[in-house]
């Protein structure tokens, strides 16, 4: 006799499974009225050698530097000079123009796929400014801003997206899976959070060798559910690894809202607590907060006080990729009503408040970066686009770099491929 019919326990209330559901679906009126806006300047800035348990509150609060009037206030204000702020603004505008251009190129059939970072530009640009140029970055696929902030040529990135003859990855990687060793930028994987333990390992190696460089990694809030994320955190904690681990919480993992990564019950920064890692939660659309948190974490890592987990609270304004249509699962107006605004507008407002910026200069800068992106696109497209077919890289190059030296079985397969193509008249 089994108890599977429930008879024996009939007097107990039935169990019910909770399946998370986002607040708004297509057709719903979007209303963020009950979003508790964290107060800019209100969170204290602990010493960078603080024990993680002494700053537990920081994983639930939110560091914000820019207030609604565009003033930079509070202990996290990094006090950056206007030239630096303008550079950050220029880079964010470049990322946006770059994304718009390549999104359109995909729609025109010039490539297979593209991933925009619209609305999240501050998360990469702010972090890049707070790291040293030779600190090693292990990005996910939405941190194109890191390369742009490090001055990497736009045309080179576009060649990768087009898999053309100028693509240093030789047409092997999907668009946006950049690799740039000279910019201390690791080759991007399409598998999620795998870069997290790798960043920890790189930083462990740096510490083993007595180097001074630290590592930094990024993943999305959805990817924090992966085992690799937790593997990374336990190693980072155990060896007090000089690494800055960032979660870009853009609220959406393709169509799954952050509740499916555990966001209904706690914050993502709070994942740090159980590991004894310092955790910070910041307004990801406030580039000064992003900069300040990354600078804090980087100072902590460099001084030997170990890792920091930073949650950047932001919003993915576009679809997950060109293969995604977000209007199928969330209201289209959500992006416009996002309570933390747009990172570019907020920095421009701040510069204006300082008397260091105005609408005319902004329009001129926008035109300048759009022209720069257009020029880079012209240069890249002159080297071909994916839509042209297979002609950009000799077919046999697909057998190279599988191993350092090509073993016999791959040589044989290469020769067979060439012979078969030749026999069929190609």
């Amino acid at each position, binding site marked *: 006799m089994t108890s599977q019919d429930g008879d024996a326990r009939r007097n107990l209330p039935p169990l019910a499974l909770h399946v998370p559901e986002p607040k708004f679906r297509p057709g719903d009126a979007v209303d963020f009225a009950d979003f508790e806006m964290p107060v800019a300047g209100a969170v204290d800035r602990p010493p960078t050698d603080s024990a993680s348990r002494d700053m537990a509150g920081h994983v639930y609060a939110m560091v914000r530097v820019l207030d609604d009037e565009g003033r930079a206030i509070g202990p996290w204000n990094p006090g950056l000079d206007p030239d630096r702020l303008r550079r950050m603004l220029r880079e964010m505008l470049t990322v946006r123009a770059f994304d718009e251009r390549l999104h359109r190129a995909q729609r025109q059939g010039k490539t297979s796929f593209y991933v925009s970072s619209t609305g999240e530009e501050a998360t990469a640009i702010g972090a890049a400014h707070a790291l040293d140029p030779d600190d090693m970055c292990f990005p996910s696929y939405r941190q194109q801003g890191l390369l742009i902030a490090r001055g990497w040529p736009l045309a080179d990135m576009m060649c990768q997206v087009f898999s053309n003859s100028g693509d240093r990855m030789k047409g092997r990687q999907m668009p946006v899976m950049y690799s740039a060793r000279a910019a201390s930028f690791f080759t991007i994987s399409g598998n999620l959070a795998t870069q997290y333990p790798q960043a920890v*390992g790189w930083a462990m190696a740096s510490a*083993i060798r007595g180097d001074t460089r630290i590592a930094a990694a990024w993943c999305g809030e959805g990817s924090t559910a992966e085992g690799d994320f937790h593997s990374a955190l336990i190693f980072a904690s155990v060896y007090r690894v000089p690494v800055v681990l960032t979660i870009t919480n853009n609220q959406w993992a393709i169509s799954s809202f952050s509740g499916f990564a555990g966001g209904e019950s706690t914050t993502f920064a709070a994942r740090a607590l159980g590991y004894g890692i310092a955790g910070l939660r910041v307004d990801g659309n406030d580039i000064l907060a992003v900069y300040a948190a990354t600078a804090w974490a980087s100072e902590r890592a460099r001084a030997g006080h170990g890792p920091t987990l930073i949650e950047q609270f932001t919003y993915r304004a576009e679809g997950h990729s060109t293969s995604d249509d977000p209007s199928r699962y969330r209201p289209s107006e959500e992006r416009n009503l996002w309570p933390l605004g747009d990172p570019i507008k907020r920095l421009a407002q701040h510069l204006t408040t300082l008397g260091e910026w105005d609408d005319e200069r902004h329009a001129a800068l926008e035109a300048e970066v759009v022209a720069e992106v257009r020029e880079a696109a012209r240069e890249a497209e002159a080297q071909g686009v994916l839509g042209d077919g297979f002609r950009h890289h000799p077919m046999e190059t697909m057998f190279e770099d599988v191993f350092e030296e090509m*073993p016999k079985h791959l040589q044989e397969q290469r020769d067979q491929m060439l012979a078969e193509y030749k026999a069929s008249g190609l």
Partner: protein
Amino acid sequence: MIQAINSALDVMLGRDPMVVVMGEDVGYFGGVFRATQGLQAKHGRTRVFDTPINECGIVGVAVGMGAYGLRPVPEIQFADYIYPALDQIVSEAVRIRYRSAGEYWIPITIRSPLGGGIFGGQTHSQSPEGVFTHVTGLKTVIPSNPYDAKGLLIAAIEDNDPVLFFEPKRIYNGPFDGHYDRPVTPWSAHPAGEVPDDYYRIPLGKAAVAREGNAFTILAYGTMVHVAIAFCEENGVDAEVIDLRTLVPLDVDTITASVEKTGRCMIVHEATRTGGFGAELSATVQERCFYALEAPIERVTGWDTPYPHGLEWGYFPGPIRLREAAKRLMEA
């Protein structure tokens, strides 16, 4: 063989400051099989250290260390425990050179004991090499004796590509003739038990003719090399035993030369049969030696079951199974 592996690690830690050894219990304690005994005391805690029980992390951080420029030698305590690290091996370590077009490469050697015959049950006996030989960009090495183990391990550590180095745990302390009811013979009585203290390499991708013969060819690796040789000696069978040593890259020339000579081929491995490495060997021999074959290829493998604890000698492809397969091969 444990001492040979220990010596290879010791030699490489001494020669190359970029070599680090890590894994569960490998530090102060020296590993559950003692392969890293004394290495932490000699080379220091940042060169030889314990890790959390987290195989994904062990391999994942080793990948990052490899990208930095170290030559990490992570240990997975039993091959049965390697699966949490699968994504870091299959999707990451082995593809990074390719996907970055040579900007980054991952010179790691993952050591792990495999195989049964020690009453390890389902979770301490598996031979998962076939899972990994299917993965391109990865080299898979399985030594069969102490001399080879040291030379191959040094070559693996110096290799600039990821290498999976599986150590057959049944032969850690001596060659195994396949008779579970006989006393263990130590390596000291075996010619390949003699291991020089110094540095030497055995190139990856080169098989060895472990026993010359003419009746048929036996393709084997690891523990099964000794089971096959003992079978030949005990039954007066004039078979040629090829010790593959490296499964990927495979030494096809040595295999085909032997099968062309004998005209018959038996493939022996402890791993389960379906989709096992024997299937690849069988297809290779058929493709290249079809007109020399005088009989269907025989595969003697573990059965397609989990490794059963109390029944392990029914699972293990021992002398009885080799004898029956040899009969079929010679009668055909």
